[in-house]
């Protein structure tokens, strides 16, 4: 585990992952978090009443995807201490989003690594920025 921490450098990129929500996955997500807001499953209501171009992908779901970017990179070698995110722009059913991350700081004494994270749309714009701190085992 220590070898894993030693090998990490500021500037390292975390593996990217693409997510394409479907009507089915969004339904299950909103059922799981007990959210009945119709913009996540009722297309006519979403476009006619709330004037979005299509069914809306939940902001916190994008936050979850960002957290997976960190957790899948860390594996069993460390624990998530801090995670922060904000949703800046909406995204819609049909879009493929990508989670990205980069190491921005490393503390050798505390065995922590700080990362800058993001969810990107197909145009490459960061629609949800985030950050995380992970502590590696000794």
């Amino acid at each position: 585990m220590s070898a894993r921490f030693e090998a990490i450098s500021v500037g390292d990129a975390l593996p990217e992952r693409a997510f394409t929500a479907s009507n089915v996955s969004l339904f299950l997500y909103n059922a799981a978090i007990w959210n009945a807001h119709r913009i996540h499953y009722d297309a006519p209501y979403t476009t006619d009443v709330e004037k979005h171009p299509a069914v809306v992908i939940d902001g916190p779901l994008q936050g979850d995807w960002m957290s997976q970017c960190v957790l899948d990179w860390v594996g069993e070698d460390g624990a998530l201490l801090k995670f922060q995110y904000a949703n800046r722009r909406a995204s819609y059913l049909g879009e493929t989003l990508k989670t990205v991350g980069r190491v921005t700081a490393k503390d050798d004494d505390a065995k922590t690594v700080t990362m800058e994270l993001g969810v990107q749309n197909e145009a490459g714009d960061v629609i949800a920025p985030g950050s995380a701190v992970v502590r590696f085992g000794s």
Partner: protein
Amino acid sequence: MPSMVSDEARSWIGRSQPPIHMEVTRRDIQKYAVATEQRQQKFLDGDEAPPMFLFGLLRPIVPLEGLGPDGIARDGFLPDFPLKRIMAGGTEMTYHRPLRPGDKLIATKTLADIQEKQGGTGPLIFVSYDLTVETEDGEVVVEERSMRIIR
């Protein structure tokens, strides 16, 4: 410029909601893990909850008549402001340990601060909340600071 935050609204700073009692179950974790496309077996098996699982756990369960025509539960934990459009700001979580099946947790949410700012598109009000999630024995499991932006 006159303040958009009345004395009554300002008196909400420091106010806490009644504590929410929550129980973590393996089945709820498994449903969440599938819906969010988790890859780690411990999440898919429900042995441990993914960090953002807490977001769903905290959502209120209200009777159907408590939902608006948009499907949203009315949230009383916000003072009355002259601005009405509410947006989610950022969320920052500090994790002391992961949530696991069988955890019985108590969440307490406090309205921590209200700030007014002049944004590029008009006035904005920022309301921040502090949330503490602890066990019945008082072990703090997660702390969260979240923001709402009203414009």
